[in-house]
């Protein structure tokens, strides 16, 4: 789309001056700033490329190299003038929006999720680690946790010989280490020995230490040193053995041979399945599951219906209320309109997530102010009854969004052509008639695109749903974590498992695609109506 942009029309001035960002001649500070910025960019880029190389992330490596070359070309070539202004934005757009859209489409056709993470090689590694057990009869070594920068390592005292290793580097004997009377390693040259007190207080560090596996030697079958508490280590080995040539995993204890199936799992002859798997293309299975699987189809259908109802009703009610207020108070005879308007739009200026959380407390059945003040202290369970919860959500969203329509319709009312209104009055049209036949149609023309945009926004209004009800109350008897007020986006959130629980990225992405299709259709309608393209 943007590659190879060129100026078609040269600048009209006869001799385009040299940009100050290109030459050394005065005022050259623009060039200096550019040079410094590009130095930073290049340094960061090269660092990132090196660490991509170390991590073996070849795709990211390729993209980084391409981006860095492109950046240097754009900012040091004379031919890429528009790109100089577009490049940073395009990079972010490409990486964090366009790519994620495309990637969603890819994941939707895989079984990516719990039990199917990463590649086959990663699944093999995970399987071997999961199966690891302390080797029988293996000795316990005094152990110290080492740190150098961000790298963690272990030092063990192997009967007087201090051996040091990290996740990448197998154990190797080092000289110059200091061992105290109890046999604990206290100093290792080139490393900082992490004090145990720090290990106890830093949960993140603890987690890393417990996960750290230092290979005993280059031969993986010899196992690795692990620790449970950071003071002693032992050799852990796996009974599973990976045969890269045959692509099978053999359990050396039972003799069972696990071979890969086409679903991304290792399965033995008698149907045993290893927990760790990799993701594979499953075609339209996720979509089929969303529509036909009994566990999902019913709840998802109700969720989809409520999503549409919620979005449409929200737009209608808030548009209606906002328009009503605008009609009443767009009256020059009313005094103090400025103050009134400021107070009227307060709910809109208040951060939406705080409003939703605030209403969550106010609508509390037992202690909420709404029941206390307006319902004589009755215990009305606004947020836990399926229908009342829906009503509560519509009510709160009305409170949140009528000011938007109040502002928009007030503006539109003031932009209405005075002569048309005048003509209607002269022709004897009553007030209602004027409103119905002239004001409303003109208003609708002006605000229809905004109404469609508002529909699309509310269709994905995750915040209000999640903050107010968490999607609940849950569907009775459903095996999926969905509820009566869940809309599609919050259902996707629950199913995806990104916040914990069983992850099903494939199904979640498939549902995202469905949402995209709906938005696409709605936007296409909006497109044709607004003809925004013609402005380009």
């Amino acid at each position, binding site marked *: *789309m943007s590659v190879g942009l060129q100026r078609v029309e040269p600048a*009209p*001035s006869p001799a385009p*001056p*040299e940009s*100050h*960002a290109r030459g050394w001649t005065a005022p050259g500070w623009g060039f200096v700033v550019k040079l410094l910025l590009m130095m930073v960019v290049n340094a960061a880029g090269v660092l*990132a490329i090196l660490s991509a190389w170390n*991590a073996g992330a070849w795709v*990211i490596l390729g993209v980084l190299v391409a981006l860095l070359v492109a950046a240097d070309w754009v900012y040091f070539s004379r031919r890429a*003038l*528009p*790109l100089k*202004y*577009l490049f940073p*934005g395009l990079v*972010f757009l490409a*990486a*964090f929006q366009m*790519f*994620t*859209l495309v*990637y*969603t489409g890819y*994941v939707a056709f895989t079984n990516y999720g719990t039990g199917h993470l990463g590649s086959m090689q990663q699944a093999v590694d995970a399987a071997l680690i999961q199966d690891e057990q302390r080797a029988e009869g293996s000795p316990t070594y005094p152990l110290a946790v080492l740190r150098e920068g961000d790298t963690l390592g272990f030092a063990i005292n192997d009967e007087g010989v201090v051996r040091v290793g990290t996740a990448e580097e197998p154990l190797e004997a080092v000289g110059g280490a200091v061992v105290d009377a109890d046999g604990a390693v206290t100093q290792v040259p080139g490393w900082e020995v992490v004090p145990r007190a720090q290990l106890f207080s830093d949960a993140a560090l603890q987690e890393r230490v417990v996960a750290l596996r230092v290979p005993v030697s280059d031969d993986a079958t010899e196992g690795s040193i692990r620790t449970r508490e950071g003071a002693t280590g032992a050799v852990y080995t796996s009974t599973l053995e990976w045969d890269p040539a045959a692509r099978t995993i053999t359990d050396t204890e039972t003799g069972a041979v696990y071979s890969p199936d086409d679903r991304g799992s290792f399965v033995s002859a008698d149907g045993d399945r290893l927990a760790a798997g990799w993701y594979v293309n499953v075609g339209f299975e996720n979509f089929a599951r969303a529509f036909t699987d009994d566990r999902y189809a019913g709840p998802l259908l109700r969720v989809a219906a409520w999503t549409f109802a919620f979005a449409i009703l929200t737009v209608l009610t808030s548009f209606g209320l906002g328009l009503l207020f605008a009609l009443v108070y*767009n*009256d020059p005879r*009313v005094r103090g309109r400025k103050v009134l308007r400021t107070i*009227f739009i307060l*709910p809109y*200026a208040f951060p939406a997530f*705080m*409003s939703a*959380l*605030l209403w969550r*407390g*106010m609508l*509390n059945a037992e202690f*909420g*102010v709404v029941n206390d003040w307006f319902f004589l202290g009755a215990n009305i369970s606004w947020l836990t009854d399926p229908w009342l919860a829906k009503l509560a959500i519509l009510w709160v969203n009305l409170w949140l969004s009528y000011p*938007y329509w109040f*502002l*928009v319709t007030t*503006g*539109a009312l003031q932009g209405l052509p005075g002569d048309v209104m005048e003509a209607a009055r002269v022709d004897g049209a009553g007030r209602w008639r004027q409103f119905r036949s002239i004001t409303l149609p003109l208003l609708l023309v002006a605000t229809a695109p905004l109404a469609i945009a508002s529909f699309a926004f509310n269709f994905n209004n*995750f*915040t209000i749903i*999640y903050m107010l009800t*968490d999607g609940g109350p849950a569907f009775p008897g459903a095996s999926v974590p969905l509820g009566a007020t869940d809309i599609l*986006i919050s259902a*996707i*959130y629950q199913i995806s498992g*990104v*916040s914990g629980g069983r992850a099903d990225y494939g199904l*979640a*992405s498939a549902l995202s695609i469905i949402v*995209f299709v709906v*938005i*696409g259709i709605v936007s296409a309608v909006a497109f044709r109506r607004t003809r925004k393209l013609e402005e*380009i």
Partner: protein
Amino acid sequence: MAVTQTPARPQAPARPSNPARRGRWWAEVGWKYPVAVVIVFYAAFPLVYAVSASLDPRGSLAGSSNLFRTVSGANYAALGSTSYWTWAVNTLVICAAAAFGAVLMGAAAAYAFSRFRFRGRRASLTTLLIIQMFPQTVAFVAVFLLLIALGNVVPALGVNSKIALICVYLGGALGANTFLMYGFFNTIPIEIDEAAKIDGATHAQVFWRLIMPLVPPILAVVGLLAFISAFGDFILARIVLTSEDNWTLAVGMYQWVSNQLTSRWGLFAAGATIGSLPVLVLFLSLQRYIVGGLSAGSVKG
């Protein structure tokens, strides 16, 4: 279409003395005042209630219905012993960075689209228009997986990094703001640029010295909208920022209310009162600019 452009106020007296005319005045105008009181109550009572709850030293939801029964700053002081201020600083840093980046990248892109004629310009604009309709939040699973992959290479761009979250927000910046700014930039006569160019100005000088000083209103609107949308974002912040020290206000305060709604109510109310102030002030002081921005592209609502 700024709402402030109201027609001049007619000279008629607001409260006529003649009884017949007063009847008409009530029927046409007067009734709007009592109704306004009802609307003011509807719009403001939750906020007044929040302020009242924040001043209630008992700090629980129970009994918070008696407005301003006791007034104390205990909840505000208690915020200091929670992570609230860490979250507030995180929020401020993330939102300010996202807003600044959005303004800068949006303005640069709008300048390019508005002032240069290049191959692929129309196609790029159309593509942008289409892409911006598909919100990032719906693709959050892919964002999450992308950050996991990036984090293995550059930890600063991985899960649980504020920089990564800022980058994710900036990914949506070009699509959301370019059109708003592009339209505004087009209203600045190109003759100004051309005159400057003849005087020897370069494209960078035209951008920084000529165009940018002419467009602060739209910069303010875009900055504010980007700030508010980052401030209000929950779903992306929730999945990107995993450790409590990195949370934003949206993530942290949700945790308060969802876990122990009744006991932490005073804390929440105090936090909400403080947290909403900057947004309220910004919003209300820039409201005349925002109305124009709202009509151009619906953002919130």
